């Protein structure tokens, strides 16, 4: 996973995405802008973050989970 290290901790880009989610950003485009990352990277990273249980996805809408918040 590009955004989550093998030890389960978010990488630098993963942390930026999680912080954007914590600030209330819900869509990949907004998260990319807030995190200063290319949109393709955010779309790819959000998949990893969801699989790791750090965020939930409903349609195009992302939300930080309790597990994700605890990592920050």
């Amino acid at each position, binding site marked *: *996973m590009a955004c989550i290290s093998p030890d389960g901790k978010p990488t630098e880009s993963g942390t930026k995405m999680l912080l954007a989610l914590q600030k209330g950003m819900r869509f990949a485009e907004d998260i990319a802008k807030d995190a200063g990352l*290319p949109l*393709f*990277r955010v779309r*790819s990273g959000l*998949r*990893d973050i969801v699989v790791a249980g750090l965020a939930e996805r409903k349609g195009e809408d992302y939300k930080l989970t309790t597990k994700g918040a605890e990592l920050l």
Partner: protein
Amino acid sequence: MEELREQEARLPRLGDPAPDFEVITTHGTIRLEDYKGSWLILFSHPADFTPVCTTEFMAFANIYGDLQKRGVELLGLSIDSVNSHIAWVRNVEEKMGVKIPFPIIADLSKEVALRYGMIHPGQSKTETVRCVFVIDPNQIVRAIIYYPLTTGRNMDEIVRLIDALQVTDEHKVATPANWRPGDPVIVPPPNTQEMAEERLKQGYDCNDWYFCLKKL
């Protein structure tokens, strides 16, 4: 060879939807759909740790900022492992002082290379030639360039091609030979005699009814 022949029959052509992929890259797992809404330059190189490819990657890194300003992302590909890619980009940064900021696909299975027609057996059966696929924000293939193993690509031409495609889309015009941003563009030829006659009255710089230029 049979697999190669079958793939050749289905190679993407200009105007076709870009063949889909989900790939392992130096930036993690990426899908083609991740680039929706952006222009994408998907390009292949023969192999990591080779001199022509190294010069090309440094040159692509140099134009990456200019491409991003135009809404374009870069995605490299070769039939090497992700560990080889990581070692190579670290070597390029350490020895040449150039950071490679874009992802590189590790296409060990050749799945994407075959789907996009990047292996030309007359050149090499095991390496990808120097392909450039320009894919638009709707994921349609808009331009394809092939270069042989021995010739490094021209970055000015790649940026010029992007500028030309974007101007064409925005203004519904065409661009003449050697066009550069700021140069006059070609007004599409008229389809009827009436349009041809009207064309000459519209204040364009016309050499004849079918050959009119205008400034943007």
